[in-house]
């Protein structure tokens, strides 16, 4: 990549028309990310058709802006109302919401957007410098490796189980069980569908999230809230980021950004796994692991940094191989084709300016997101000054709309509602809901890859250990589980 083509990219992107679309994209992205049920993927899908008649730079400025904004936007409701806007922001809710309850919503939002920016910017540079290396590495992932990585994800259950490890495991198993519902991914057999067509697609992630996090919280709140209870008011402080805090956590941020970029580049994964892996890694090496789950700054930084680092990572296989790295890039691929560009290994060699244009779009898009986010960190917490008796009914209405909108399925509303009640009962009896969500998210990755690995190796169970990468991941998963278990237990003694 020559300097001149990098500068050509810059001049293309800072043209007023492109810049305007980019800013608009980021704005819409943040809104889509922030509404539970609408995700970055929905946003990009809905708006791809309007790029039909546009040039490459404004079209991709708009869509990639949406992409960056969308992955960040989900953290806003996660922090403010315990409702992750998208599956990738679940781990943010674990620490962001407690911080907001302590009256530090502004600070939490500021950490979230600044870390997102750092992660997004880091991965954009990776796209520029390491695209080919990262793409080759991502291709090394076969079914065995997918399974083993998901196993590391499962080890996070130890970290989010709270007081009782047993209850956490039970909750995780129930999640995996729910993930079995629907059409069997390998044989096409119907499981637990009771002849209802709507259940065939299984328990959708977003409605499940909305139910388990937002509705259960709202039900719980309705029990304690009195009509006289006031919202959280008070000065919003700590919005401006302090360089020192981020510098102290530079290793954490770097690790999270690397995890995000690599996970993003692996086809078929996405921000959810990246965020969980970084979260448990952050907890593992934290000096204050007991803060995790009660408003840990490191927790928010780790998740948000890595889930936005996914953006640059996921674009790598898209532009180098024509294979999408996550659900959004799958849609971006068709947007590329609309532009008359054929995705594939020769895309970059034939269009040398493409990468630098994308790089600048991502860099500027992330910066615009930072500005909007910091501005918003001053405003959004005011939402919490609404008295709970008004706020929570509004949240519930949004939840119902959101869970309907994902798949246009009224059945999904009932899933949300049912899981909301179930989550409420779980919390009453001291069962953590986060492991259940992990089960629902990781189940559909683990099962087909486990079975695919076995089928292709003619039912040889050692295949998970004889492949070096897979073996390393499995050892890591066990080591993580063991270390985190020891840490949580020694803390109590």
């Amino acid at each position: 990549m020559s300097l001149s083509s990098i500068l050509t990219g810059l001049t293309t992107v800072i043209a007023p028309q492109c810049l305007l679309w980019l800013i608009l994209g980021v704005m819409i992205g943040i809104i889509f990310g922030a509404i539970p049920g609408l995700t970055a993927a929905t946003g990009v899908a809905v708006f791809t058709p309007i790029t039909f008649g546009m040039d490459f730079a404004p079209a991709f400025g708009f869509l990639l802006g949406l992409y960056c904004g969308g992955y960040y936007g989900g953290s806003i409701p996660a922090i403010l109302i315990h409702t992750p806007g998208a599956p990738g922001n679940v781990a943010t809710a674990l620490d962001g919401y407690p911080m907001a309850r302590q009256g530090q919503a502004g600070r939490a939002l500021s950490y979230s957007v600044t870390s997102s920016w750092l992660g997004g910017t880091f991965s954009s540079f990776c796209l520029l410098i390491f695209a080919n290396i990262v793409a080759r590495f991502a291709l090394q992932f076969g079914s065995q490796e997918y399974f083993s990585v998901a196993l590391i994800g499962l080890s996070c259950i130890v970290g989010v189980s709270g007081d009782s490890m047993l209850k956490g495991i039970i909750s995780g198993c129930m999640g995996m069980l729910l993930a079995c519902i629907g059409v069997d991914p390998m044989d096409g057999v119907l499981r637990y569908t009771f002849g209802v067509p709507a259940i065939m697609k299984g328990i959708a992630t977003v409605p499940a999230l909305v139910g388990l996090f937002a509705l259960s919280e709202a039900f719980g709140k309705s029990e304690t809230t009195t009509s006289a209870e006031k919202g959280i008011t008070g000065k919003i402080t700590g919005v401006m980021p302090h360089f020192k805090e981020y510098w102290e956590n530079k290793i954490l941020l770097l690790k999270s950004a690397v995890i995000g970029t690599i996970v993003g580049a692996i086809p078929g994964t996405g921000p959810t796994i990246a965020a969980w892996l970084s979260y448990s890694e952050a907890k593992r090496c934290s000096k204050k692991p007991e803060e995790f789950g009660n408003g840990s700054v490191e927790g928010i930084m780790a998740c948000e940094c890595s889930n936005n680092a996914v953006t640059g990572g996921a674009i790598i296989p898209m532009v180098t191989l024509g294979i999408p790295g996550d659900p959004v890039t799958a849609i971006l691929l068709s947007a590329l084709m609309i532009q008359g560009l054929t995705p594939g290994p020769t895309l970059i060699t034939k269009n040398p300016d493409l990468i630098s244009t994308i790089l600048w779009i991502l860099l500027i898009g992330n910066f615009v997101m930072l500005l909007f986010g910091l501005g918003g960190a001053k405003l959004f917490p005011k939402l919490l000054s609404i008295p709970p008796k008004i706020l929570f009914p509004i949240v519930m209405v949004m939840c119902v709309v959101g869970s309907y909108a994902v798949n246009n399925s009224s059945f999904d509303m009932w899933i949300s509602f049912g899981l909301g009640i179930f989550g409420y009962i779980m919390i009453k009896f001291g069962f953590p809901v986060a492991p259940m969500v992990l089960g629902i998210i990781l189940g559909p990755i683990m099962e087909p890859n486990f079975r695919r690995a076995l089928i292709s190796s003619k039912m040889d169970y050692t295949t998970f250990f004889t492949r070096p990468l897979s073996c390393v991941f499995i050892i890591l998963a066990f080591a993580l589980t063991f270390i985190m278990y020891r840490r949580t237990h020694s803390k109590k003694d």
Partner: protein
Amino acid sequence: MKKAFALILSVLMVLSLAACSQSAPSGGSSGGQSTPSQSTPSQSGGTDAAEPAKVDFPTKTITLICPYAAGGQSDMICRTVADKMGELLGQTITVVNTPGAGGSVGASQAAAEKNDGYTMFMCSAGNISVVPYCSEVSYTIDSFDMIGQATDTPFCLVVSNDFPAENVDEFVAYVKEHPGVNFGTPGANSSQEMFMHQMEQLTGIEMTHVPYGGGSEVNAALLGGHLEVACLCTTDVYANLKDGLYKVLAVSSEDTDPIVPDAPTFISQGYDLTCTCYYSILVPAGVEEAVIKILRDAYAETMATDYVADAFKSMGIPVSYLSAEETSEKMHKVTEEFKAIIDGLNNA
């Protein structure tokens, strides 16, 4: 305090507006279910069914159910057709995505909709010709009337570059020597899987099916060296094939396919395999004659426009319009073929 409240209100309004804009198509679809129950009986009562008279159709929004997620290729086909056809009919056609279970969620829903012509459905070979015969779903091919075919793509037999075969003969010979070679497809009960079984039954070879989650996952596995043999549609292979990342031994079209011009057909190599994955527009069975004629004519006109030709070209798929009768004949033929394959598998 007052200022803060006003601000919050405005934020909420923006949020709910954005949410509404997304759920708008669904509002249209639920409207499409309730109103026709009042209007259709009077319409069909007024006209003689044997002699289609003039009907006032369409008078409101039509729904086109796309059984795949928004943003994918099938969704783009739906949106292109919906745009142009709606323009010709003078009514909006909204695309409603009901993804899940390889399209059978959408198919089940479409089959259960009112047959008043206000609900259309885009099917693919997998969910009409395969799923009803290997899974318990509430529809068959007879649950629908045909409007016309949109596109069809032949299947490719893809092998990695170091696979020791350059044509189908060598491939068959190799697999006979090494039974149980893995082959990947985009999913369980997909038309690609059926096609490979058809090939197995024709040539007497035995392979192991490894289903993946979509064409791009199969591509990733092929490029990463985790898979040596796969069956994919031409649209999934053409970019990688052009760059020489794997070989296509044969393509299942009757003549050489313009998307993969260098790949020989199965027929030219002496194998009678000519199956394609079709995408067609259907309506629930039993739509009034006069109404379905309006839809068919509008569809024929839509598919002949430059707008559709350009949009399909940019997606790398052919415009292969077939009339309702031809579509029906083709779909029944493919369905019979696949049914025979499934019966063969069950008896084996």
